[in-house]
């Protein structure tokens, strides 16, 4: 009898432990599946091979500036030549710059096939076979889809040339607007609820309401933003009432509208975190301040807020990292599908990092999956940095309060 009980006990322990470990394994597989896509061999085929356009023993990279210009003149139209000369005259351009022009305009390498990291590492023979049989003119290269070029290029419809600079700027501006809206409002509400509000019906309702707001699906906030900011407040959010000259093709689907929507989305999170921070301020601190004759606001401003500020900031950083990854409300508010230029004002059309990931993932071409994986790595690194910042702030706070 006892042995059976012991055995049951042991088996259940293993089951419980496995369940916990599955969580860790899931995280590892998730990370692996992303990194697996972001690096790997690619075959690219040149439209014109470098040897064909440059009749010399040397490599194209060793060609002089004059030789490169003459290649350009031979292979691209006069009009295009003139345009390049107009953008920056050829005499002022460096040899590297002209080489880049030759590469993109004449050689024009196109990726025709791409592999994941695991098949690159373990199936190289097969890859070389494919290269020989299917793409005799192709070149094999190990490519990191996450590259400085990727970070700094604007959006493009060609997977190997596309980048995330427009999306990064968009995300940054959205977050800024969201913080400007939600931070003061959130802290104000938290101070009111913790320091001023008497426990009456209205204040209970406000508190209950905040908890419920935190549980509403984010897509509903997007619909609120669509109806209020994009449609109802269009004259303001498209910037028409400020200036007639503003390009108004965005129809209210602007950075401002989306930023305000995200601000409202993170408002309840900031309030709840700030309330907890303020609640943790020792009563003795408050009483001594009142005892010295300070007013309520003086006590709040010079004692309660300074004491709780780093915890409030920690909570707010976590709220911001939530906003950074939010996708659904941005789609509903009307993120643009293609934005090739960096947004120049808060009244511009917008795209954001998660929106880019969504669009790239949804495309059928496998190359775009790899681009999406690279963008996900950037997003995760940003989130990790934010969270590390929050943890450091928390540790700093704990040390200060102890010392």
């Amino acid at each position, binding site marked *: 009898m006892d042995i059976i009980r012991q055995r049951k006990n042991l088996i259940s322990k293993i089951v419980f432990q496995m369940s916990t470990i599955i969580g860790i394994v899931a995280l590892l597989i998730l990370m692996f599946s992303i990194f697996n896509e972001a690096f790997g061999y690619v075959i690219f085929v040149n439209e014109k091979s470098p040897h064909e356009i440059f009749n010399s023993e040397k490599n194209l990279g060793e060609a002089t500036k004059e030789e490169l210009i003459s290649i350009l003149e031979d292979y691209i139209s006069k009009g295009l030549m003139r345009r390049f000369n107009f953008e920056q005259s050829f005499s002022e351009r460096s040899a590297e710059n002209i080489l880049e022009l030759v590469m993109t305009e004449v050689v024009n390498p196109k990726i025709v096939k791409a592999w994941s990291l695991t098949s690159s590492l373990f199936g190289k023979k097969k890859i070389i076979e494919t290269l020989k049989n299917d793409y005799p003119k192709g070149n094999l290269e190990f490519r990191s889809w996450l590259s400085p070029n990727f970070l700094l290029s604007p959006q493009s419809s060609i997977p190997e040339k596309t980048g995330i600079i427009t999306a990064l700027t968009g995300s940054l501006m959205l977050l800024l607007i969201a913080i400007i809206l939600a931070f003061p409002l959130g802290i104000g509400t938290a101070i009111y609820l913790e320091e001023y509000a008497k426990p009456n019906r209205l204040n209970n309702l406000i508190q209950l309401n905040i908890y*419920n707001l935190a549980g509403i699906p*984010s897509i509903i906030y997007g619909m609120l933003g669509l109806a209020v900011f994009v449609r109802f407040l269009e004259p303001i959010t498209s910037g028409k009432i400020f200036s007639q000259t503003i390009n108004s093709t965005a129809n209210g689907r602007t950075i401002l509208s989306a930023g305000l929507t995200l601000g409202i989305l993170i408002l309840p999170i900031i309030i709840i975190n700030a309330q907890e921070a303020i609640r943790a301020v020792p009563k003795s601190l408050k009483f001594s301040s009142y005892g010295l004759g300070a007013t309520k606001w003086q006590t709040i401003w010079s004692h309660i807020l300074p004491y709780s500020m780093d915890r409030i900031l920690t909570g707010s950083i976590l709220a911001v990292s939530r906003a950074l990854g939010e996708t659904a409300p941005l789609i509903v508010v009307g993120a643009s599908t293609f934005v090739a230029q960096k947004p120049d004002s808060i009244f511009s059309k917008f795209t954001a990092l998660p929106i880019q990931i969504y669009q790239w993932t949804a495309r059928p071409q496998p190359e775009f999956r790899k681009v*999406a994986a690279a963008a996900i790595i950037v*997003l995760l690194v940003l989130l990790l940095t934010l969270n590390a910042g929050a943890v450091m702030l928390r540790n700093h706070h704990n040390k200060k309060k102890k010392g």
Partner: protein
Amino acid sequence: MNLSIGATLFDKNPSKALQLRELLLRGLLSFSAIISICVTLGIVYILSTEAFLFFSSGEVSLLEFFSSIEWQPVIDKFGILPLLNSTLMTSFIAMLVAGPLGIFAAIYMSEYASNNFKARVKPILEILAGIPTIVYGYFALTFITPFLKNIFGHDVVDVYNTASAGIAMGILIFPMIASMSEDALSAVPSGLRQAAYGLGATKLEVSTGIIVPSAISGIMAAFIVGLSRAVGETMIVALAAGAGSNFTFNPFKSAETMTGYIARISGGDIGYDTVDYNSIFAIGIFLFIITLVLNIISQKIIGRYREIYD
């Protein structure tokens, strides 16, 4: 919380300007608190007026909305059942993954694990819960779906299917259920535990016979919050569950959910005051009510078990 001692001491000797500033700031702060109420009112107002326009357009009656099994806006068929059905399917699959895993992990962390193990595993689970849902959508589409295809056959499993979306959602929700359930388990007074051990019970008997039943309301609340999260989840289903409504109970077929439909329709440049535009609000208010009811139930349950042990 309201400290009137200092205030009354001060009130005997106020300077006018200072008093005015106090009043002004108080007004400002209460105004910011009112805003959160306005957000809720705004959501309710907008969803209901637009949904009203949808139902009063004559294209669809309430009865048809809730009974027809066809959702084809192009030919004016608006029955929410196929969308609701796939929402329930993905949520059910998610809970099937996250429920048992979450509660087992919670029992392990609360009753078995050393503090050292806990300190290492908890941050990992927090990371898992903090990853944006779009990443889970990517994971579902590029990893889970091919995985299912390899197991069940390429012809059986569609490229877009509710099973892979549900599994990814389960992984997303699992840490939340584990963490909330663990809080509930840890809140059980240790006297109960020690009494049971004193009677010679094994760890399993204590956990499943004493601790879990005592914390059952907290665990239920965790499940309900997880369910509400699954119902409202958008990006995973938008990427992995497929576009186009489909009334099916086969988890390997593509079927659009309520949130998936809202995201797809509003993603295009949608014209105001069209049936399409109004239809997303009709679905939105339905979604809002479901999640609100689930959240209120879970808060009621949590409130009750706090009363018992505090």
